[in-house]
């Protein structure tokens, strides 16, 4: 799953770990603010956000040891 840019639809969206005080730590997004998150998180946030842009995955190169080496034809 890739990442998406979302826009906050609700008045306030506090998002983060419970270990810190989200409201005090200003990890609160207001209506109209945008942020990037995983598609999975966007799905979990449901109607609180709207997906405005899909960000393509960066293509990870295949590990060298797995690449097949074709024998040179003379």
């Amino acid at each position, binding site marked *: 799953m890739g990442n998406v840019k979302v826009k906050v639809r609700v008045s306030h969206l506090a998002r983060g770990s419970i270990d810190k005080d*989200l409201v005090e730590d200003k990890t609160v997004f207001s209506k109209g603010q945008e942020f990037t998150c995983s598609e999975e998180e966007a799905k979990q*946030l*449901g109607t609180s956000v709207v997906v405005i842009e899909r960000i393509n995955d960066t293509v990870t190169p295949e590990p060298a040891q797995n690449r097949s080496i074709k024998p040179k034809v003379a």
Partner: protein
Amino acid sequence: MTNAIVEFSKQLDKKIVPPLRQVLKGRQLVHVTPPAGFGVTSVDWGKITEMSAGYVSFGFSDGNTDKIDISLTHSKVPVYWKDYEIDRRIYEGWLRGGVDVDAANAIAAAYQAAKVEDSALINGVSNDGTNYDISGLYQGAGNDYNTSSSIATFGVATTALTGALNLMDDDGVPVDRMPFNWVVNSSTYHKIRKSRDTIGTRELPDVLDLLNGGQLISVGTTLTSAQGFVSPTAAVGEPYVDYYLTADFQTDPKQPEYQKTGPIGGRVFSAGVLRIKQDVAICKTSNLS
């Protein structure tokens, strides 16, 4: 026979409505208007979108005429229903006066219809399973306190609840003056109830204290374990949200296919729509597990 079936249906209504009142969770969460009539298929209502700022001065001056910004919302009123059948011999027994009406099937149908209504009020109405045609309390919430944490850990419930109340407070909802309900999935409900710290102190009294006289309410599996919300109790919540009821639960009899032996069929139904007037007075507590 038609009159007898109608009378039979009335007897069923008497048996159905009292038990349903006990099990309907959605209606206990919001103010319910008196039934407006089944013929009402849609309703126009004002939704407060933004409160304008007040003024302070040493006198009243012209030109400061202001108004609350209200957008007119048009909602179709959905119907919640389920069909049932009752064995003909039970009906014939009732006609003879010697047998009490066995309303088991009708009550079972009514429970199914009630579950649909509960789901519509608590979560929302979705035809495709993804997009919500009508938002319920959870889907229509105007604030969201989203944190991935285990609710079973002591302190997480009070932190999440305080955070949710804080968000609503920032939107001008008088959280210190109103009782709130915290509505959660059954699994979350029981985890909060049994949450204790290392020396055995329970977390529940703190949670109830924060709710200002409201309750921690389980809605079974109508919400998933990662879903929950905080909303004003029905007693004080009318300015923020209400349930516009057009028809209360009742039965509608159907003529039997076979005049002497055909089972007596019928339909249990209700109709109404949730109106969220100020969504900032509802805050999701999402992603807790």
